[in-house]
């Protein structure tokens, strides 16, 4: 093989790796909260063996209301904690609990149960 052939081969392989990475190796985009007539961006989250959906996308500067609904009795998930907002909420089984936040800065804010078994992210754009 001549040097240029080796170059083309390596370049081709790199291009293929790039295509695979670019198109197929991206993170799930998350669920976008809907802007409702109340002025809030709302989304309903099911707490049952994890948070469904667990990645929520919202816009910054607008109030956010996350409606948690816990449908299980496992111990840890009875509280959800938003460390960046200094907020936590008790989630009694079978009730819908609204957590209201006002994210001012774009970024990623995690939320979890106190022991960190369930995890979710709030992505602020």
């Amino acid at each position: 093989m001549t040097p240029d052939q080796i170059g083309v081969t390596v370049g081709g392989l790199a291009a293929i790796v790039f295509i695979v990475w670019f198109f197929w190796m991206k993170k799930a985009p998350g669920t976008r909260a809907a802007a409702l007539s109340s002025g809030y961006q709302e989304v309903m989250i099911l707490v049952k063996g994890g948070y469904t959906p667990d990645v929520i996308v919202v816009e910054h500067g607008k109030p956010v209301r996350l409606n948690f609904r816990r449908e299980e009795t496992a111990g840890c998930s009875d509280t959800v904690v938003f460390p960046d907002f200094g907020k936590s909420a008790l989630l009694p089984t079978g009730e819908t609990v609204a957590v209201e936040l006002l994210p001012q800065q774009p970024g990623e804010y995690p939320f979890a149960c106190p022991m960190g078994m369930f995890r979710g992210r709030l992505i602020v754009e």
Partner: protein
Amino acid sequence: MAIDPVCGMEVDEKSTPWKRPYGDREFYFCSPGCLDAFDADPARYAQAGTPRIATRIPSSHLRIPVAGLERPDGISRIETALGALTGMKRTAVNVESDLVEVHYDAPTTATEVVEALRTAGFTPGVARTRFEIKSVYCASCVLFIEEALKQRSGVLAASVNPAESVADVLYEPRLVDVGSLKRAIEEQGYAVAEAAAPTPTGLEKQEHERSSEYRRLMRKWWFGAGVSTFTMIFSYPWLFPYLRDLLPRGSEQLRYLWMFMGVLTLAVMAYSGSQFFTGMVRSLRHRTADMHTLIAVGTGVAWVYSTIAVLFPQIFPAAAFTEVYYDVTSVVTALVVLGLAMEVKAKGRTSEAIKKLIGLQAKTARVVRNGREIDIPVEEVLVGDTVVVRPGEKIPVDGELTDGASAVDESMITGESIPVEKHVGDEVIGATLNKTGSFRFRATKVGKETALANIIRMVQDAQATKVPIQRVVDVVSSYFTPAVMILAIIGFVVWYDFGPPPAIAYALIVAVTTLIIACPCALGMATPMSLTTGIGLGATHGILIRGGEALQTTKGLNAIILDKTGTITHGKPVLTDVVPAPGTSLSRDAILQRAAAVEEGSEHPLAAAIVEGAQERGLTRAKAQGFNAIPGHGVEAVVQGRPTLLGNLKLMTDRQIDVAALEPQARILAGEGKTPMYVAVDGKAAGIVAVADTVKGDSASAVRALQQLGLEVVMITGDNARTAQAIARQVGIERVMAEVLPQDKALQVQKLQLEGKKVGMVGDGINDAPALAQADVGFAIGTGTDVAIEASDITLIKGSLKGVVLAIQISRATLRNVYQNLVGAFIYNTAGIPVALGVLYPFIGMLLSPILAAAAMSFSSVTVIGNANRLKRWRPKEVMP
């Protein structure tokens, strides 16, 4: 230039056909409308001389009352929210008086300021109303009306749309009322329609955008199709007898013609195909490849290759490679654009649910003020007002009954078919229909607080949260496009490393032609052709499908919620049982005949069911005298000379009639979800008549069919658990959601959705509308309310649950057809990929040629069209009972 005395527009006195001499002057008009207005009252306009031309003040100033300012970050939040608007000059927040003062310039409007406050989470104390104005003919009339409205204190903004003849006014309800706004317009000499004009929803705009989008796409298609015909012929002139001699292969004339073709095709790409390139940029930003990416890459590369081949043929290793793929570019672009146009058309009507809901509201209310009953617009009813309602009238707002009694038909809100008896202290709901008596009530909820307003809001919110589904072609393309790119790179590397010289030329040709052949022209049509056929198929079977998306989602349903009343059942009470008391001398028919005679004079909701039941059984009408209704208990009358009582247990106990022998029977009937009523003759228990809302004949088999299709069937109802279970048992449903409040139905749908299910909802009432909008697919029973039909995606005209089964079968058949089409669209092109890669080259020296690409295009198009037509012959399968 003369001035039109009516509207103030400038008119060319020489050219205008509308003129009128009056007094010693000649007047000129812009339109026949202004002329008519002048003729009606010439003195007024002639005297006015030069009309008032109002100039718009560029800078505006608003004082808006806002609730919720007291929160700690209130001021800063308002300032940031308003500061984001263009043209904002100064904002002052006064927490004590709950006022926000705003100074701003155009283009920001008052409506935008109010909206910005609302999105920031505050409640501006601003009301909006729309008047329909008659006789607005010209643009300048608009200014007079706007100025007149703005001069009233309390009016924040007013705009008149002459095209719709509607004035849109934003005002402070504390300072100004609707009546005075109306007068302000009338003082300017314009007539105002009695009712407030409905607020146009975003949907209307959407509808308009859709039809213009369709027309735009069709223009693009015709242009692309025209150029395509031309390029198809002149790309292969040697195939046509006469052209063969005129434009021989490799001749200079042909080269110049091809250059011209290149320019034309570039125009097709830039005009007809623009959305593919903008779409490609958009999807690359999201790191996905969709249909647009595939088409843009294929057509773009084909054009660049062909243009290089025409301009620099000498750089190609053989003359065979210098032929052009312009036909691929133009034909693919044209056909995919046609597919997009079909898709836009298949999207169908948008929902008008909101408009229909607003139309339900009573327009006026009769309110007691200063001891007099006056009619006022429903917007002006205040909390605490005493409202008078007569029989047959709509109840204007929510409230609590203070005087009188009646039966109220609440089916439009609660879905329950049987009218509800209302007594002092009971709650009444706005927009429901008063049936029998007249009463007074105290308004407790008005405006945005009423149950109807809540339903409107819930429908809006449910529609806002619906996520559009990803198109099947886009899913396929997201894998296909990168795969093709990878294959092209592999082809390039292999040919460069192992191919014949000049390696770089061959490698490039192989890579580029791989991208060209991979671009399937039937791709855009594969989905819309089948979906359009599927929608037509639904229509012939009595199922109106609102659009391709609904059809697509229906296929994926795995749970279906059925509303009980009106969906599984008829939604109307009918007579079900007549049970004679043990030891009575009366026959069943005699008991029923008497019961019917007693009920004949009754206005009780269930009375009609008994009377109809007697008629159906062919019983003659017995004569009743001395009719007496005992509210909350029953009725009594003398039938054929014998005193007869009909009513509940309480009535019987009050009259000391022993019904102990009948009680077990009554309990059984109640357990079956029926309403039993006792009949007593001559002071002795004679029997029971029972009425119930009965199950439709084919509900049970439809439920079984749905279960066989693999769907979880759930019943939802506001009724008590016992009645619900009784009905569920009859039709074979296991999961029942009973005692669900109307406003919670949508929540129940959402709960099932959170379990990861695709949920269909079948309903017929207004109270079902939010749930229908929330569900992935909402099915409305065609015999139900307009609002439910508008909020749903699919309407079952025949009103039978069988329609749901059919709709699911049709959607499955259609989607199967879509997949077949996609295979048909891709298969020929995919088969061409190895040829383009040069798999055949070592054996027969063959690489991709334009004629091969053209063949793939025509084969795939014919396959797709043929297969979609095959769907027309689909017949419903009878599901085994």
